[in-house]
């Protein structure tokens, strides 16, 4: 009886081993098939992509290209905004300086007239400015003429009757109005901006 039980147990064990082997084989077969399928798919995709690659690249280039362009535009705009901050601050500083009418500014006015007269050439010059500056120039015309003669020789500065709407600085013309020199603070600031914007960007580290 015991022998019989042992025999049955042995057969059950053997059966288990056979089924386990079968399962193992099955798993290997399926894994190998899945691997093969994956290879076939990958190879097929590769071939298809090589067939329609240019079309797919065009799709990608269109989307990524547009994003790149938008990004660069955004960066450029940020850079311009930062640069504008500097130049707007400079403009405010110049306005304050002009409004304050301190000795620094009146000296600057003299230099602007002198620079304009030198650039135009000749002997008689007509100067105009905003109302505040023109009033100052009228009050001090004799001194101004005397001082400018020291630098520029025998010249005469005359003042226009009508003021112009500018923040500060002067507009100077020769006697027959064939030459006019716009030496306003705003004009100078604009010139400077176009000339040294790159340098300013370098200082700010936004290049």
């Amino acid at each position, binding site marked *: 009886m015991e022998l019989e039980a042992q025999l049955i147990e042995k*057969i059950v064990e053997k059966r288990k081993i056979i089924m386990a082997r*079968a399962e193992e084989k*099955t798993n290997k077969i399926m894994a190998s098939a899945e691997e093969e399928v994956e290879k076939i*798919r990958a190879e097929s995709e590769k071939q298809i992509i090589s067939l329609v690659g240019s079309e797919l690249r065009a799709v990608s280039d269109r989307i990524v290209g547009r994003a790149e362009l938008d990004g660069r535009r955004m960066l450029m705009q940020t850079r311009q905004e930062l640069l504008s901050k500097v130049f707007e601050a400079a403009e405010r500083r110049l306005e304050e300086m002009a409004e304050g009418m301190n000795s620094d500014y009146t000296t600057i006015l003299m230099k602007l007239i002198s620079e304009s007269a030198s650039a135009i050439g000749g002997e008689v010059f007509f100067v105009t400015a905003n109302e505040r500056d023109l009033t100052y120039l009228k009050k001090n015309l004799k001194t101004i003429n005397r001082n400018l003669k020291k630098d520029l020789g025998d010249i005469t500065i005359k003042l226009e009757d009508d003021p112009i709407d500018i923040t500060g600085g002067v507009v100077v013309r020769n006697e027959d109005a064939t030459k006019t020199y716009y030496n306003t603070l705003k004009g100078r*600031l604009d010139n400077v901006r176009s000339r*040294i914007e790159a*340098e300013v960007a370098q200082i700010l580290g936004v290049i």
Partner: protein
Amino acid sequence: MGERLQRLLDDTEIKADEIVAEAQRKADEMVSNAKAEAERRRNMAQRGSGIDELKREAEEKAKIEAEKSIEDYKKKANVLEKFPEDKMQEALELVLKEVLPE
């Protein structure tokens, strides 16, 4: 008794073989289907049709790349905006020096 047990074992062997054979059949079918599908898609691609899905995939991939690119630019812009105040002053001084006559 011995005979019955031997038959049981033989049946098990047969069943195991059948299981393996079935797996092999399924595997062959999978590979064969994949080959047929690959062939079908290749043919369609050659005719220039049936690539909508590929185009959609390319589009999706490109959108992700585009978003990443925009994010990178945003980060760069944020870095730019955080320049130190002394740099602003230095730039301002330079501008004023250039604007005002010597």
